[in-house]
């Protein structure tokens, strides 16, 4: 008895320890989820080792202090950590940003953050992450150490929730964090009430259900979100590039939309730029800094320039203000609703309806190749800070390859040309590619042999930056189809991404590493196909005249032969074909995400199921199933019903009889009721015989009494008991029982 009792106590202590371990692990997982978001931020902008130090410091402090310090003091410490962190953040801000720090501005920034403004867009994102991290880590770990798991999860959950609202916490960190928090709360309840293993099974079931459902449910038709097991149709080039607001993620396979977006009347052909991005995150691009309302004329490029007037008319609903680089003035109703990004692009705050038009004046830089070659590298601080940034995690092999390709050149221009030519010649153009899981540039350079403009442009920027050449990622449209003199029809499929490189005294100069030939072929084919299929919106008046819409412009990018003067001439700058150099300004893009991206909806390419994710989700589902099976007793029942059916090898008559009786008892348990504790076998059979128990069953009971309590039974009695039980089991087995013989 006493051993039994102490055994029970030990079991309780074990369960207690297990609950605490699970709760602590849950809190750790939750902490990991939001620290990983911050880590990603610091990885992009630098300072990840400092962040880890800060987090580790907060952990150690909380562990040390956890046992000695009252809750009130701990809250004070947390507040001090947060206030101190923000003080550091404010002090680290550049002067220009400090001037903007008014209470109203702070408030609107906070609102912006909470409604989806990525942390990465903060100018001092790295310092900000450092400032924010220690507070919640300290508080939640302190509370966990003190066994107040629920409040610990609340503290961590607030932090994670903040990053969910800013849109920085991806699906996986969010899910992991929520699962961790849930596990911690559940385990804390177990801890308090001393629950046992059965409850752990329930918890495992619930968590597995959470994970598997959120991983699979949005695959259901109509759900728009991005499930872990993706099966979304591929987006359009335009949807992925132009409609991105402040953040652009590189996607996998992509399609071309043949619909006309807008027409441009311009004396000069150009790339119609909508947005430029400065911060590279490894899997996409972020535009940092705040926008300012457009209030009149903007600054032109630093060097000489030529004024180009463009009249842009929307043909579909667009939320962009395409313009040749660099836009300095906007006229038209939309001017009142325009804003200017830090990068110098203009964009509307409302959408343009079809037929709406505006006039935009651009100052297109003028330069010669020689001028670019002679350009120095004494870049302004602002350019240096923003446009040489690379994630800490950028691989060395990318840097090495960039050095191999461009290291031999002694000026930024030749470096840019070298990288551009290298990419054009090394990679094939293809719209159908698997979405890379790691760093885009690294993957494109070393693991992919084909890609489209986003990949080319991203990789080129990364390579140039690693060589100390300031560059940025630009999105917009190629010139489109020239339907009349100075008139261009621009379709969705003309959307494009390219590169701009900064040159002293000239400003931003365009480079396009994407091979133009294959791209145009693909685009033309798509327009032709759309016309044949009678799709709407493919043409506007005049554009269908040209049987094959040879988009005028694009030719130029192909021009690899840059060296010569071709690019150089200032005058040709606007000619899209020219290689390079030129042009225009910008709008940011705006919300229209939905419109453009969805009107193409049916997907084509196969979702590349990431096998490891599938595996993980499957594993989680299996764990949940096992827990559920254990919880519901399915395993036990399955084992027992197998056990019921097989007497097994013959042993002594005594053992055989006992086993036969146990099988009988299990059979009766399923059919009638289990034998109660304290009920003798004889009393059990007697009470069942009142409800029609087979008389043979009583004989098995008698044989059992003989075998177990008496002097044993003969072989014959044992065999008779076995065959009686076999018969009863068969009789109670539906269908199958008829086929089994003795």
């Amino acid at each position, binding site marked *: *008895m006493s051993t039994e009792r102490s055994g029970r106590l030990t079991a309780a202590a074990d369960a207690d320890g297990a609950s605490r371990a699970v709760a602590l692990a849950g809190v750790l997982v939750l902490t990991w989820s939001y620290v990983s978001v911050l880590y990603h931020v610091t990885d992009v902008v630098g300072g990840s080792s400092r962040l880890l130090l800060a987090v580790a410091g907060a952990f150690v402090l909380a562990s040390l202090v956890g046992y000695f310090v009252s809750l009130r003091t701990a809250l004070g410490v947390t507040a001090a950590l947060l206030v101190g962190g923000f003080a550091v953040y404010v002090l680290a801000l550049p002067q220009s940003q400090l001037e903007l720090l008014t209470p109203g501005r702070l408030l609107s920034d906070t609102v912006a953050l909470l409604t989806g403004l990525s942390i990465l867009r903060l100018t001092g994102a790295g310092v900000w992450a450092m400032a924010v991290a220690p507070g919640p880590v300290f508080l939640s770990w302190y509370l966990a150490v003190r066994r107040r798991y629920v409040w610990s999860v609340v503290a961590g959950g607030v932090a994670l929730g903040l990053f969910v609202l800013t849109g920085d916490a991806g699906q996986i960190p969010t899910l992991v964090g929520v699962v961790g928090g849930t596990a911690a709360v559940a385990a804390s309840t177990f801890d308090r009430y001393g629950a046992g293993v059965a409850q752990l099974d329930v918890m495992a079931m619930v968590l597995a259900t959470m994970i598997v459902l959120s991983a699979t449910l949005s695959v259901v038709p109509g759900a728009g979100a991005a499930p872990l097991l993706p099966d979304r149709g591929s987006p359009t080039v335009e949807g992925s590039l132009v409609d991105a607001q402040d953040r652009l993620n590189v996607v996998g396979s992509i399609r071309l939309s043949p619909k006309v977006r807008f027409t441009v009347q311009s004396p000069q052909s150009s790339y119609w730029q909508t947005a430029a991005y400065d911060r590279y995150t490894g899997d996409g691009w972020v535009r940092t800094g705040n926008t300012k309302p457009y209030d009149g004329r903007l600054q032109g490029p630093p060097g000489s320039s030529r004024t180009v007037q463009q009249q842009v008319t929307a043909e579909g609903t667009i939320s962009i203000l395409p313009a040749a680089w660099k836009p300095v003035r906007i006229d038209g109703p939309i001017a009142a609703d325009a804003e200017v990004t830090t990068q110098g692009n203009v964009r509307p705050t409302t959408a343009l309806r079809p037929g709406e038009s505006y006039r935009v004046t651009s100052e297109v830089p003028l330069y010669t190749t020689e001028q670019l070659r002679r350009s120095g590298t004494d870049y302004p601080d602002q350019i240096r800070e923003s446009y040489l940034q690379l994630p800490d995690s950028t691989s060395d092999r990318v840097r090495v390859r960039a050095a191999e390709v461009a290291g031999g050149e002694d000026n930024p221009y030749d470096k840019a040309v070298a990288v551009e030519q290298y990419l054009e010649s090394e990679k094939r153009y293809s719209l159908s590619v698997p979405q890379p899981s790691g760093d885009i540039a690294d993957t494109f350079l070393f693991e992919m042999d084909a890609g489209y403009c986003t990949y080319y442009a991203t990789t080129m920027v990364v390579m140039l930056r690693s060589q100390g050449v300031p560059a940025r990622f630009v999105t917009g449209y190629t010139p489109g189809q020239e339907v009349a003199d100075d008139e261009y029809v621009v379709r969705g499929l003309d959307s494009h991404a390219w590169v701009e490189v900064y040159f002293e005294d000239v400003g931003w100069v365009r480079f396009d590493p994407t091979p133009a030939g294959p791209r145009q072929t693909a685009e033309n084919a798509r327009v032709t196909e759309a016309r044949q299929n009678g799709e709407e919106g493919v043409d506007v008046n005049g554009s269908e005249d040209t049987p094959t819409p040879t988009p005028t412009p694009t030719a130029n990018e192909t021009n690899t032969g840059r060296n010569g003067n071709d690019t150089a001439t200032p005058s040709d700058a606007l000619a899209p074909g020219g290689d390079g150099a030129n042009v225009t300004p910008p709008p940011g893009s705006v919300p229209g995400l939905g419109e453009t991206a969805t009107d193409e909806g049916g997907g084509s390419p196969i979702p590349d199921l990431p096998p490891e994710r599938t595996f993980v989700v499957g594993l989680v589902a299996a764990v949940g199933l096992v827990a559920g099976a254990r919880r519901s007793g399915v395993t036990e029942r399955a084992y027992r019903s197998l056990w019921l059916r097989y007497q097994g090898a013959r042993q002594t008559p005594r053992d055989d009889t006992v086993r036969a009786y146990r099988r009988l008892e299990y059979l009766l348990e399923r059919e009638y009721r289990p034998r*109660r*504790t*304290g*009920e*003798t*076998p*004889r*009393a059990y059979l007697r009470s069942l015989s009142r409800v029609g128990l087979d008389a043979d069953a009583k004989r098995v009971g008698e044989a059992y*009494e*003989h075998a*177990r*309590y*008496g*002097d044993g039974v003969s072989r014959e009695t044992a065999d008779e008991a076995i065959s009686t039980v076999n018969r009863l089991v068969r009789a109670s087995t539906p269908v199958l029982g008829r086929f089994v013989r003795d």
Partner: protein
Amino acid sequence: MTDADAVPDSKPEASTVAPLPVEDAADLATRITENVERVIVGQRDAIENILIAVLARGHLLLEDVPGVGKTMLARSVAVSLGGSFKRVQFTPDLLPSDVTGVNVFNQQTREFEFQSGPVFANVVLGDEINRAPPKTQAALLEVMEEEQVTVDGETHRVPSPFTVIATQNDVEPNRTYELPLAEIDRFMKKLRLGYPTESQETELLGRISGDHPIDSLEPVASVEDVQRARRTVSQVTVREPVRSYVSRLAGYTREHAQLGASPRGALALVRASQARAVFEGRDYVVPDDVQTEVQSVWAHRIRTDSDDTGTSVVDRALDAVAVE
């Protein structure tokens, strides 16, 4: 039947007789029971319990109101098994020697002769034992335990079988010497006869109003038969599962009462169960035998809080302890 399975026999002289076959022993018990029932109406359980005490070498404590036929019952059993019967009325002035007997000087032989007391009979009824002083009670209990009387250094063995049926009067508690629990523990069973039902009483009145039927009661067995049956009982198999069941039951009562069943109580239960098995014509004990016997064997041995009873502790033990 192995030695390990049999309960050791503490009465060496009893082993000199050959055991009856189980069927004969069962038949003997049935015969005696039916014979007694000709006199005693509606007390079959009590008759069986007395017979079990006789066969299992135990003694009985009857606790009841006066006038329910205790004396008649004891006497009928004694007559039916062919043995002698004596009755002692315990009173506050009863001396130990009044129970056991005394040496008296014989003038003719000029020697001390042992004059045996009333305990020298096969069935002894000690009426209202709790009215005698403790010293007298102790004398009786000693005989019960040892089945012999020692007077002046001389040992006198009581006849075999020897069974004491003691009664306690619980209607006048302030004029009694309550039996200590340690002494109560020496009784194998404690019974309550209770009042007869209305129809039983009606029949009883009809039978006794004329000649008392006990006067015409004939023995249906011999003392030797009973001795042999006792030997049969002591050889009934008690295998490990049953022994473990008994000790788990005992463990339960020890954990759930102030004072649970003693090892002596556990042994008494095993013996009573053996006798019960013989009643059923079996040469091995099944858990059902234990369950049948346990209330009458244990309830009086368990001391509980005031709001509990030994009976209910035993009931709970039966519910809680698994039969394996």
